[in-house]
């Protein structure tokens, strides 16, 4: 599985006690140089460096065609009052995910919303840490016997990253996990 990581995802995930799940779930994660430059804190730098050293994380070679696509997207969404502000690094990740057919790892609400309505970018699959945890169950990396065990894993993440997953999304994921457990 191939992904693209944005800075907020890496900052939060680096705090998580089971962060090694990511390395087992993905074969390759792409990162833009500007995303890397956003990371300064020791936990995020140490974690990201270890991923780069292992070869799982790789700098994406940005091209002039990518820049053209970014400029078009920026024109389409930057002045859209429906969206939270979207900055250049957020949009770069979305462009990379679209061009490479990768899963975008992001905790950015604006990015999630673009993929809910944009005709081109609605094809991009976005995973927050919640979907990473969910898919770690399906792939056998996280062993659970009940929904409560899964929700406990989610709670651990929320505690480590100081996150709250909104109830609607959590209910949707919990329903899918329950169905998977019944199979």
């Amino acid at each position, binding site marked *: 599985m191939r992904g693209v990581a944005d*800075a*907020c995802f890496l900052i939060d995930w680096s705090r998580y006690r089971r962060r090694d799940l990511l390395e087992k779930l993905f074969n390759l994660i792409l990162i833009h140089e500007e995303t890397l430059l*956003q990371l300064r804190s020791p936990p*995020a730098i140490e974690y990201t460096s270890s991923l780069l050293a292992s070869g799982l994380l790789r700098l994406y070679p940005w091209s002039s065609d990518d820049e053209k696509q970014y400029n078009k997207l920026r024109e389409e969404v930057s002045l859209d009052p429906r969206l*939270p*502000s979207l*900055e250049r690094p957020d949009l770069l990740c979305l462009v990379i995910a679209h061009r490479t057919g990768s899963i975008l790892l992001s905790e950015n609400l604006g990015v999630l*919303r673009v993929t809910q309505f944009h005709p081109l970018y609605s094809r991009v699959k976005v995973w927050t840490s919640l979907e990473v945890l969910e898919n770690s169950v399906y792939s056998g990396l996280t062993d659970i016997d009940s929904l409560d065990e899964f929700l406990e894993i989610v709670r651990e993440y929320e505690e480590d990253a100081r*996150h709250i997953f909104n109830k609607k999304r959590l209910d949707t994921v919990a329903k899918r996990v329950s169905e998977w457990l019944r199979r």
Partner: protein
Amino acid sequence: MKVEEWEKEDEEFKEMRRSKADWEFINAQPPHIRAALIYFIERGDRYVASRIAGLSLDEFDEIRRRAKIPVVV
């Protein structure tokens, strides 16, 4: 999802950030950090909040964690 649903979601998320925040910590911060934390509570945008604070994204995030303000997604 409709715009009205997004607006409702924004209000819910804002209230969650506001209610969990450590206001004593926030009010004890220098003005630019306090302003950045309050902006984050209102809008949930770490990038812009970090620019207000004059910090990198994850330097701001460290302060957000200490202020007990959750990221809500």
